[in-house]
């Protein structure tokens, strides 16, 4: 079984390096869809299963990439900077090219300002990213937003360095 997994991963990696063309190839050559699992009768993978694994790997990579980059804001602002727009454009491309993904956009604030106003400001920050992604063609039904205000800081502390890290949107993608 372990052997099979290693073999399966090698095949998947090969497929992924072929940048999307792999799925068509797999579908068009059914004879190669089944892989011998070292003599084990239960170790055969159907084309469907291979496709499922390929998609899962694509999703895993997209989820990691979408979650890796946060976007940051100025104090009491929900304006998207040029850098933020570039990051969001990448996320939009990933969301559009990777089927079966949902995205939760979290809006956060620094500890300046009061909790309740920051809850509303966090909503605005999350919504700014949401609206940008929708403008970039992402299906809005895949998107959700939540504000945590100043309740979940990324960095503890009241220095400007900490605060600038806390005025942010975080992106939590998940598979359907």
């Amino acid at each position, binding site marked *: 079984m372990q052997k099979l997994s290693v073999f399966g991963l090698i095949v998947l990696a090969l497929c992924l390096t072929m940048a999307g063309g792999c799925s068509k190839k797999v579908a068009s050559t059914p004879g190669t869809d089944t892989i011998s699992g070292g003599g084990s009768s239960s170790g055969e993978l159907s084309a469907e299963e291979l496709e499922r694994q390929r998609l899962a790997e694509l999703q895993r990579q997209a989820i990691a990439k979408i979650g890796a980059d946060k976007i940051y804001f100025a104090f*009491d602002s929900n304006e998207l900077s040029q850098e933020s727009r570039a990051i969001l454009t990448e996320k939009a491309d990933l969301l559009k090219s990777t089927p079966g993904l949902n995205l*939760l956009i979290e809006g956060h604030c620094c500890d*300046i*300002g*009061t*909790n*309740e*106003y920051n*809850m*509303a*400001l*966090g*909503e*605005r920050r*999350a*919504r700014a990213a949401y609206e940008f992604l929708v403008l970039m063609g992402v299906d809005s039904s895949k998107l*959700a*937003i*939540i*504000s*945590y*205000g100043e*309740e*979940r800081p990324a960095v503890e502390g009241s220095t400007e360095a900490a605060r600038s890290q806390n005025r942010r949107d975080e992106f939590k993608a998940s598979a359907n």
Partner: protein
Amino acid sequence: MRLVLNCLILLLITSNATADTLNIDIYGPGQSRVNLFVADPLSKESGVSLGSIPANAPQELQQRIHANCAFLPFFTMLSGKDIVGGPNPGGYLGQNIDFNKFQLSRTDIVITAGWLPRPGGVGEVELRAYEVYTGRLIVGKGYGVASPQQIYEVAARFCADLMEALTGHGDFFRSNIAFVKKEGKRKQVYMSTAQGLNIQKITNLDGICVSPSWSHDGQQLVFVFLDDKAHNLCVWNRQTRELQKRRLPGNTLVSPAFTRSGTVAISLDMRGNPDIYELRSDYSVGRVLEENWGIDIGPDFDHSGQKMVFVSDRLGNPHVFLKNLGTGEVSRVSLSGKYNTGPSISPDGTQVVFAQLVQGHHKIFSVDLTTGQERQLTFGPGSDEDPTWSPDGYFVAFASNRSGPYQIYLTTKHGDEPILIPTGPGEATSPAWGKL
């Protein structure tokens, strides 16, 4: 009301205030101060020692009364060392008290306690407050104390009566405060008396509770609960201790508050922008109370239910506004500063307090709605946030990190020196004042 005390005897009821008697105008501009001495307890019968009363109750009660009165900024608390000739009053009844030495010590009011043991309980106590210069009895009450746990309640009742006799209002000792306490990554709702006694944990939820607010009758508490996926509206019933949790339309729920009629007002973003709505009794979304292109949050209502204060960034920065719900007219309340949030309107609808960002820290400001005059109530280090009026419109509680972690403090409409309300270890924020 779970009344556990037996009021034994009503001694001489508070005298009516007359021109020549001591009374304190806590609302007027020139708040006077009086010197108060809480005398050591005495036995009512010469052959009976106070030591026969369990749990050190007589001393505990006097200490509690002393601590309670120390919350009132119009009292200067005297100690035994301040009394010329020693602190023993000579007796717990007016005819036995040596008022002369208290006069010499510039004492204005002296409080005495006379105790007797009580079979099957702690004891019976008569508490009296005398005006030293006239010897007049201001308040006299008797209580049966069944258990040591009732000590704080006896103290609260007596202090409420004393405050009411002197100022016309005793609600400070009859009211409670809800607040949020940080516990690791979670935040839970707690409540205690306004003196930080009888602390009770209300929630034990896996997430973050924010923005508690009491109903006007003090029987329901509303707040927002944030879990890993969504905001939820929570309503806690004090009588049944039941907690209802509901999802509402939109993504973000901000600053719920009870209206005068008992419905909940809350800011929802269901149209893509936080606006203030009134929920129906089944918590479905009802009428719009305030909407605008900007952020509209933080509703709070006066006792008449006609005045609603709220925060809006419609002018570019967050400011406090007032809406007359009868006419629909909206006017700006905070005139200075660039960041004014967290408003609370006094029950009589004449004063608004809020937090203003001053040089990177929040300070509590008040605005007199009649004159429009704005003044800063708190100073010093750290940030002072989330002000909330007491039911009598005299005290203002707020959260502050002036001494380190956030704790709850108390000042007054005059901006008296803030006093810590002890709420135990851990950060405490978001005070909400309700009735007991």
